[in-house]
């Protein structure tokens, strides 16, 4: 049984052991190393991808489970050459330090902001409970997310 699924908009096929974690398959077989291998236990959020539009930890998901699913990684979250609004806000606020946690942060926040376009700081922090950062202290990340309110207002 090869596992067939959509990966960043393209139909892909994986013929290895279907018990392999999606994270390992993405990094090793599909060469998409934006999804990070950090805790391996679902706590840190660095391996988050979107499965059918919803953020899930790829380190604990066997690739066999994504048969027929739509998988989006950090490489596919924006259009080629264009950053999505969350990525752009992080760039504008110069918040990235080592970079290990940020793909996961983008995956969490891109989804969260779809349903919560005007969150409070506390709501953003709750959304980021499963994304651990050892570098930044988080506040500038929250500043960047909160700036998206104003961008939305400016675009009206």
């Amino acid at each position, binding site marked *: 049984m090869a596992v067939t699924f959509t990966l960043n908009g393209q139909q892909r096929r994986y*013929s290895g052991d279907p*018990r392999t974690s999606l994270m390992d398959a993405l990094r090793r077989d599909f060469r998409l190393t934006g999804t990070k291998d950090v805790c391996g236990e*679902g*706590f840190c959020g660095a391996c988050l991808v979107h499965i059918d539009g919803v953020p899930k*930890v790829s380190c604990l998901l066997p690739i066999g489970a994504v048969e027929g699913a739509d998988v989006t990684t950090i490489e596919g979250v924006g259009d080629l050459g264009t950053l999505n609004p969350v990525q752009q806000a992080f760039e504008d606020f110069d918040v990235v330090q080592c970079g290990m946690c940020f793909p996961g942060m983008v995956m969490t926040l891109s989804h969260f902001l779809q349903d919560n376009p005007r969150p409070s700081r506390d709501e953003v922090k709750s959304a980021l*409970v499963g994304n651990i950062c050892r570098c930044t202290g988080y506040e500038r990340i929250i500043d960047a997310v909160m700036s998206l309110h104003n961008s939305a207002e400016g675009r009206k």
Partner: protein
Amino acid sequence: MDSANTDALFLRPTDIKAALVAMDGGAVPVAGGTWVMRASLRGDSNDQAFVSLSQIDALHEVAEGEDFLRIGALVTHDHLADFARNLPELGALTQAAGMSANPAIRRTATIGGNICARGFTAADLVPALLALNATVEVHSSSRQDTTPIAEYLQARTQRRAAGLLTTISVPRKRGHSAHARALLRKAGEYPIANISAFIDMDANNTIKTVRIAVGAVEAMPKRWHSLEKALLGQPFSADAADMARDLLDDFTPRDSVDAPDWYRLRVLPGLVRQAFASITDQSREDA
């Protein structure tokens, strides 16, 4: 790796009978996968084939009746928290499902997995189900049994060989329930101790039914029978936390890297206070 080999490694049955056949052949049942996929971190073998339960529609269903809530084993924490939020007597279940782990794990981890994960000492849903007197339905190739969850937990090791947990039934009884947990950070971690409480009072606010379950302190969650006995017949305003402080000998707490044994006991009275405060708030909302 050729296709014939990989077919045998990851089975995707669409009904319970086929899943049981696979399990009888040695395949490991996989719900959300959040426990099974950490086997190597625990030093457990991960060589067996997986039988994914996700294609069995009946296991994803939640059914609400006037006096019950029936939950399929593959229902995620997230879905359960959302479904049960308007059922005040099941507040413990909503809170346990809604606070556990982190958002991404809650979208994947299932109620069945939470109950069946052998060696998982810090489940949140399990104490809530104990306090709410839940039963579980287990299918094997020859029979189907309904068992109180406390009994199922005791026999969990044998049950794994015997069948598949398919449904959890939670009676809806008059009363209020709450779940409280102590963590090292504010959120996003396993609890070092948790408590679920169910209380029903009479018209004079005297406690006529009380069930209190404690998790993460010992290797398995259990009911706090001595505290229940002390509270029965008392006014709800009685200081339950104070009573709890005198009844900590009921527990043999575990010592581990995240918290020492004495600390797990130390936080219990505070958790009792929190759970009772939550029940007080719920009662006021009803009034």
